């Protein structure tokens, strides 16, 4: 396995510097960590949002790299797509077309009607393998775990072909363990957001989590182990801000400046930013067949998003639970522009929030938006209404 150090900039730095480095990395559309990995001889599996079983690629020695667009103009990609599409589909292709980054394999998922087209579009533009991972869309079938285990086995064979080596159950268990540690650390970060949100600005918490999609998880674990105790020691004091849940960041990501704008008047105590990184809620069991365990965790011990239909997880009910669990007073219900699942879910969310008498703020965003003044004023008005209600 390639052991390149991809993100050493934070090491030995004070917490403000660590968080600054994370923000810089998350906003860098040249993906320097991926370049470093490749320069050291490593191969990269790029996968699109929302959830991907990274453990399988990790076990084969590849760098799993979550492709989730970038705040850039899709100059070349625009000519490959129609007009009425979300930005992330275009910019994700752009960063590879324009050479900002390179991958050795690309996997997309049938999360939405646009994303499932990506295997076809990418396959026509690149020589490396581009395919769809068919995560089960009937999560309620008793046969879904067995099917998914078979699908993971198929994926593993494809990955082994790219990696040039076989993956053993022991390799997989080691990777499951690394990812279990990572999930536990991210849960701790979210504990801080929920219990003492004044200790870390919303955009910093986001950046600290989101870099995990750009570096090997071992490195992310080291980073979180170093940063979390420092954040917990922060002398910051609680301010008079509204506790809110942010919903709508499951695929296309809002710019850091947008999260910062929200943070000026609100504490983001829970959210669905990059929800794929936190899809599995508990440790994946390390005994038995690792692929079966991973499949079981995806189906049985997981969170929710607008792109998974599971009768056990009605999304508006899940949102209300998220709000209650995090003791939020209100919700910001957003959708990326042209994101069909997000826009459709907004209707269900807002109606459920109306019924529950929970205040909410509805908005749309785009990853490459640059103006936040209007949003900031609207949000402040919303918050003032709540404070003086």
């Amino acid at each position, binding site marked *: 396995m390639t052991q390149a150090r991809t993100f050493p900039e934070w090491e030995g730095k004070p917490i403000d510097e660590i968080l600054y480095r994370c923000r810089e990395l998350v906003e860098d559309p040249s993906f320097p960590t991926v370049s470093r990995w490749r320069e050291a001889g490593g191969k990269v599996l790029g996968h699109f949002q929302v959830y991907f079983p990274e453990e399988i690629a990790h076990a084969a020695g590849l760098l799993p790299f979550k492709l989730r667009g970038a705040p850039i103009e899709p100059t070349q990609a625009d000519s490959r797509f129609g007009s009425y599409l979300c930005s992330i589909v275009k910019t994700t292709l752009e960063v590879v077309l324009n050479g900002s980054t390179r991958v050795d394999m690309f996997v997309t998922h049938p999360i939405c009607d646009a994303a499932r*087209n990506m295997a*076809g579009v990418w396959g026509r533009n690149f020589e490396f393998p581009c395919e769809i991972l068919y995560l089960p*869309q009937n999560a309620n079938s008793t046969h879904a775990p067995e099917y998914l285990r078979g699908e993971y086995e198929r994926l593993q064979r494809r990955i082994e072909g790219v990696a040039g080596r076989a993956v053993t159950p022991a390799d997989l268990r080691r990777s499951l363990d690394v990812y279990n540690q990572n999930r536990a650390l991210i849960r701790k970060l979210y504990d801080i957001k929920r219990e003492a949100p004044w200790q870390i600005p919303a955009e910093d918490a986001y950046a600290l989590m989101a870099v995990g999609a750009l570096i090997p998880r071992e490195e992310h674990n080291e980073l979180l182990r170093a940063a979390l105790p420092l954040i917990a020691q922060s002398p910051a004091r609680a301010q008079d801000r509204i506790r809110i849940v942010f919903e709508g960041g499951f695929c296309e990501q809002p710019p850091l400046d947008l999260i910062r704008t929200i943070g000026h008047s609100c504490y983001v105590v829970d959210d669905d930013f990059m929800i794929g990184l936190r899809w599995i809620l508990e440790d994946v069991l390390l005994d038995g067949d690792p692929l079966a365990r991973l499949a079981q965790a995806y189906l049985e011990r997981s969170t929710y998003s607008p792109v998974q239909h599971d*009768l056990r997880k009605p999304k508006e009910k899940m949102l209300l639970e998220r709000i209650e669990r995090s003791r939020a007073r209100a919700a910001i219900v957003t959708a990326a522009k042209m994101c069909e699942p997000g826009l459709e879910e907004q*209707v269900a969310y807002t109606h459920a929030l109306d019924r529950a008498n929970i205040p909410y703020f509805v908005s749309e965003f785009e990853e490459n938006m640059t103006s936040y003044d209007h949003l900031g004023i609207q949000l402040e008005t919303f918050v003032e209404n709540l404070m003086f209600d």
Partner: protein
Amino acid sequence: MSAETRADAAVVGRGNKEGARLFREWFDELTRAAEAGRGGAYVFVMGSLGELLRTFDFPLVFPEINSLQTAVRRVAHEYLNEAEDFGYSPDICGYVKADVATQMRSGALPMGRIPKPALAVFTNACNTYIKWGEIWERMYDIPTFTLDVPGSRAAGAHAAPGDADFENDRRYVAAQIRELIPHLERISGVRFDIDRLREHIAHANSMNRDWKRVLDLNRSRPAPFNALSDGTIFLGVANAQRGSAAGAKYFAELVEEMAYKSDQGIGTLTDERYRLLFVGVPCYPIFRRFTEMFTELGGTFVNSTYLWFASGGSNTGFQCRLDDPLEGLAEGLLVSVRDAMDSMFFQTQPLLDMYRDYAADGVIYHPIKSCRTVSTGLADSRRALMKAGDIPSLFIESDMMDRRVVSEAQLKNRIDAFFEGLATRRSHSIIAES
């Protein structure tokens, strides 16, 4: 009247007339079901499971067809506005919004009235199907069932029966069908009868075989039918009557009609000058005019990807085994729905084959705002087609429902210019040959 003229009168145009009649009768039945308070099975064109649902006597409701009818009858904007007032974005599927408004109007549509859903069954061939089903879950608290049919993983990566990956998918589809049946029994109060299923599958087999034959017959020059206008009527029957004896009979007679026209050299146009392929979804808000913009200049649509995917892959002609109907249905769904998805996502090679087999002169790409499933990759597909061969193509965008994004004058300008290019190309070719 000569014998030949009498035969012409009896056969030519029968498919359109009978299709319209069957369609009206189907809708009258739905209206009666609604008035009697019966619940319908809400299904979609890609993987309707009509064969199975008929076994339980459910009235079949196709919301996609209902919605497009509002556009063809020029009232879609009223429905879209109502759904948008309810909170749905202008940027989501127009079919969904027209259906939301239809539900808010207690099922009232220009053609009659549809029953409320007793259940909804949908595949994942279009992700919006699943989100749509969630809307009915919330509106009516009804059972919904996702039949997950995994598609091809990459272009040309077709796992075949016997292959481990195909078998993994097939077992999954078969298991889901078995899980669905007890729900259907409970909701309908009808016991599952495997012989009835076998009978409906046999009708669907017959329809599949004949649909493929009809499509093949349009290779004739001149083409016996227009794949855009006539083809949409045939599609309506293929979906609404899937698995019924009436549907099977209709398609057997349609083969007869198209074979007759082919033998007699009777084309849908008297002067067929250009043979065209259509990729995408029709422009229903100006459906007749849209077709005329091509036919007035001698262009006939000889085939389309729409006739493939919107028939749920019936174009494959797949024959489900009848000795084990449940296994046969699972395999048939997997092969057919997968083909439907391939013709939307991985269409380059099939289009090149179609261009050759139908001796086409050009390809019309019509991506639409409302449908990302079909439209997302069309610009890139066109690039690939142009790279693969010297194939004239036109790329025009509008919508299947929303007249706000349909500019008739702009479409006509582009289409006229395309035909001028075709004419010039033909002149050059004649000069080069002489």
